[in-house]
């Protein structure tokens, strides 16, 4: 019935074919083979990552929810559900639709849990903008996000965009969605109750996206391959109606389980629901609404057409559910039932075309992978600061860094996203973290995404730790207490031992930092095979984090507010330049080791800032990150575009090289501004937690002035800083 050629076309190995034959005791049918190929793919089966992922902590301060498709935490009677997911390869092939369907897919994971989506964040990586194709990618991805997210009425409130050569040929599009629900209203992605009905709802099924998860997401890019037909096409209007209809249907209490048909479509939804529910399932494909003629059973089972749901509905209540979907102009078709036993049985016009155990489909073989320290580390980790010339003109260095695309304002992108709809956004994009109020409570949540992949390239373990620490620091700067994590782990081909080493060390880094901060990893996604003919991407374990703000009135933003306030530095600046934006942009190299990270110091600094903010002592708080101290200070001066405010920094210590002092990226540093009378109170808090604190200057004036030892001070008019930072990205992305 099937041949080795079928296997290869479906992305299965000969070995896997033998395993399948042994499992089911006969040659598989084409439909069965197709189903195994998608369920056993890297994307669905986590075949190279599952063992490592078991390390990640699952508990924290708040009770955690680990669902089938997403996870979250419970705060009072509210469930906050969130997850981040990648759509890298589709976006590299077709940026607008790739990004759009990335947004659509992650949103479905949230509302199938019974939660209303309240916010989106995007963590994006592109190659250098000097390449026209990367401009095209960035414009297309931003267009796809605005096209889909704006229409849905889910605000895109934050995220990050970085640029590096390593993403030439393989961009990253990671989308995070947050939703909320009353904790007793959550739904699960599993079947329940033999005899209950299986209803298909949403868009009809076409031939789009066949093999999206197995062929596209689970292989690296090679020269001269055409993969566009494996990208799905999104329709945000249908998705918006699907959100409303699904939440209305769930509110009836007659839906006992629900799952979206995303990657691997109907195969994944049916087999995974049955496997999680410990039941069998029987589906008649004749009832599936189709948009193309003569679709073969295997095509229907593998299609990744968007905006579709599979529901398990109490027997006798089918009409009520169907009526809700039809009110919203959507298909709803009874296509099957829950059965006893554990079999997934697929029929086509009465004839059985597949019959396999649900658990066989969902228990993909896991692979032990050899793991070897990459050769490149020995070379790139060497950085001799004595041989690095100090810049002559620090003004020019600062302007250049502010205008470099990874550091420059991302306003060009977020201006195109509706970030205010739903009227919860208390801190708009452009500060360290987005803040959203939770209507009906006094609380708010802060959300951010973070990952410096240069650090992860130089030191995967510490780089991943830093991603966690920095995400937490960003939330603290908004006044929040970090509460939980989702991760999106982007790496190269895991069957190459040095790539797997990076993956392993990053997961261990995330694990150790999360354990230290008592943060659970409630959900996540792994994206392997991010390689093009020029090599693998930098390891990019993107961290999405949310934090809780007890009193929505006590929030903080990164920009200076008033003249003549004290500028305070929490933490210490060390002589380290490894992996810095300064080295990359000015000295054109990514070298050295990632900055040191002392988790105890990090904790002390974060606790000090949070307590000071919650006591109302702080006017602004900003994390020191890419570009170091001077970039952070400049951002505090200019990021509120309509209210630029200068500063004079006259009390830095010069025990280290000036370029390291100004542009080094030592971790665990926060810049605060506050009333002069608040300084002693903040100092007392810092002493309590043993956090280093130094008043380094004061706000005021129309310039940023920084004394530079015996040399001429750094002094730049705010307009120049603002122009470099605000205008640069728009200029570079223009055609």
């Amino acid at each position, binding site marked *: 019935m099937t041949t080795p050629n079928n296997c290869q076309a479906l992305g299965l190995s000969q070995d896997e074919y033998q395993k399948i034959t042994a499992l089911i005791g006969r040659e598989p049918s084409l439909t069965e083979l197709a189903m195994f190929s998608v369920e056993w793919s890297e994307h669905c089966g986590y075949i190279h990552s599952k063992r490592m992922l078991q390390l990640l902590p699952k508990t924290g301060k708040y009770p955690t929810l680990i669902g089938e498709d997403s996870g979250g935490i419970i705060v009072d009677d509210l469930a906050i559900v969130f997850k981040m997911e990648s759509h890298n390869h589709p976006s590299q092939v077709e940026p607008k639709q790739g990004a759009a369907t990335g947004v659509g897919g992650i949103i479905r994971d949230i509302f199938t849990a019974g939660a209303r989506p309240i916010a989106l964040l995007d963590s994006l990586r592109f190659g250098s903008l000097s390449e026209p194709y990367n401009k095209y990618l960035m414009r297309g991805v931003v267009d796809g996000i605005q096209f889909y997210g*704006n*229409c849905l009425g889910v605000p895109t409130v934050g995220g990050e965009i970085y640029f590096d050569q390593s993403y030439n040929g393989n961009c990253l599009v990671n989308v995070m969605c947050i939703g909320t629900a009353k904790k007793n209203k959550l739904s699960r992605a599993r079947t329940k109750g033999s005899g209950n009905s299986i209803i298909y709802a949403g868009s009809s099924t076409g031939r789009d996206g066949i093999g999206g998860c197995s062929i596209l997401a689970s292989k690296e890019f090679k020269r001269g391959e055409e993969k566009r037909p494996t990208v799905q096409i999104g329709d*945000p209007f249908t998705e*918006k109606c699907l959100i409303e209809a699904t939440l209305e249907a769930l509110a009836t209490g007659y839906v006992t389980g629900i799952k979206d048909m995303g990657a691997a479509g109907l195969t994944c939804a049916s087999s995974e629901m049955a496997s999680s529910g410990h039941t069998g399932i029987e589906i008649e494909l004749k009832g599936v609404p189709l948009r193309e003629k003569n679709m073969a059973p295997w095509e229907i089972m593998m299609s990744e057409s968007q905006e579709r749901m599979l529901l398990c509905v109490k027997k006798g209540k089918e009409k009520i559910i169907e009526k809700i979907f039809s009110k919203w102009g959507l298909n709803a078709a009874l296509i099957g039932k829950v059965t006893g036993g554990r079999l997934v049985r697929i029929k086509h016009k009465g004839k059985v075309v597949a019959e396999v155990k649900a658990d066989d489909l969902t228990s993909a073989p896991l692979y032990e992978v050899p793991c070897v320290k990459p050769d490149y580390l020995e070379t790139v980790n060497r950085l001799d600061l004595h041989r690095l010339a100090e810049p002559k003109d620090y003004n020019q260095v600062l302007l250049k860094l502010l205008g470099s695309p990874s550091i420059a304002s991302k306003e060009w992108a977020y*201006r195109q996203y509706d970030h*205010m709809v739903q009227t919860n956004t208390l801190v708009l994009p452009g500060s360290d973290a987005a803040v959203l109020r939770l209507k009906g409570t006094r609380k708010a949540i802060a959300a951010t995404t973070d990952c410096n992949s240069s650090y992860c390239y130089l030191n995967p373990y510490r780089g991943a730790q830093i991603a966690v620490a920095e995400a937490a620091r960003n939330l603290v700067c908004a006044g929040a207490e970090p509460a939980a994590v989702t991760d999106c782990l982007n790496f190269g081909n895991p069957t190459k031992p040095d790539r797997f080493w990076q993956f392993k060390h990053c997961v261990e880094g995330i694990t150790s930092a999360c354990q230290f901060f008592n943060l659970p990893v409630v959900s996540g996604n792994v994206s392997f095979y991010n390689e093009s003919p020029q090599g693998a991407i930098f390891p990019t374990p993107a961290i999405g984090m949310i934090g809780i703000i007890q009193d929505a009135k006590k929030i903080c933003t990164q920009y200076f507010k008033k003249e003549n306030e004290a500028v305070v530095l929490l933490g210490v600046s060390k002589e380290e330049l490894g992996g810095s934006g300064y080295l990359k942009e000015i000295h054109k190299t990514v070298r050295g080791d990632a900055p040191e990270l002392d988790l105890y110091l990090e904790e002390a600094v974060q606790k000090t800032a949070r307590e000071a903010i919650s006591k109302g002592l702080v006017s602004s708080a900003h994390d020191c990150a890419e570009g170091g101290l001077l970039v952070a200070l400049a951002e505090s001066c200019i990021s509120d575009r309509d209210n630029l405010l200068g500063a004079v920094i006259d009390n830095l210590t010069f025990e280290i090289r000036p370029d390291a002092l100004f542009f080094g990226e030592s971790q665990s540093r926060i810049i605060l501004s506050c009333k002069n009378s608040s300084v002693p109170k903040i100092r007392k808090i810092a002493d309590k937690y043993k956090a280093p604190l130094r008043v380094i200057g004061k706000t005021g004036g129309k310039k940023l002035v920084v004394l530079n030892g015996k040399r001429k001070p750094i002094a730049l008019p705010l307009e120049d800083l603002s122009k470099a930072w605000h205008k640069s990205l728009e200029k570079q992305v223009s055609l």
Partner: protein
Amino acid sequence: MKFGVVIFPGSNCDQDCFYVIKEVLKQPVEYIWHQSTDLAGFDAVILPGGFSYGDYLRTGAVARFSPVMKAVNKFAAQGGLVIGICNGFQILLEAGLLPGAMLRNRNLHFICKYVLVKAENTETAFSNLCRPEQILKIPIAHNEGNYYIDDAGLQELKQNNQIVLRYYKFNPNGSQDNIAGIINREGNVLGMMPHPERSAEEALGSRDGLLIFKSMLEYLQNKR
């Protein structure tokens, strides 16, 4: 005073408008499904922002054929207050309840940001609590907000004092004569691109939008 918020498939500011009327303005409010044909009992109707029918064909072009629009027409003809915000404004244009048409933004991008608008006519049912020439801080979020009308039409708008809101200092979308909001000749139908429901609470950065809803309430209470 009872407000109604229409839901078209694809509306996405319906819940925000509902929230402002109920929780901030503290007035009774109900949703109106787009297939409803009866607006009896409502004092004011809000056509909210969003992407009705996915903006297919043209913004508002499909929504104007929804059954509820017949009822809205009748409601307006009888003097009921109708406010169309963003996509609601676009629908009012397509339905012919207001003159002119909407083009894509000058920069061809969706734009979401706070802008300043000047209250040009403060004698209307929607702006009577604004001071003359008061500058309001209200956000926009649209792709097609570039209001267009021919010269004769523009003259007529001016002569009849129908321009209620103009962008102040900075015109974000290229609209003719900096128009941000207009009213019909009878004075009971307003369309505006900025979102007053997003700027009705201090926590969100501005309370200026609330003046629009409060003006409506003031008008309705005086009318009784």
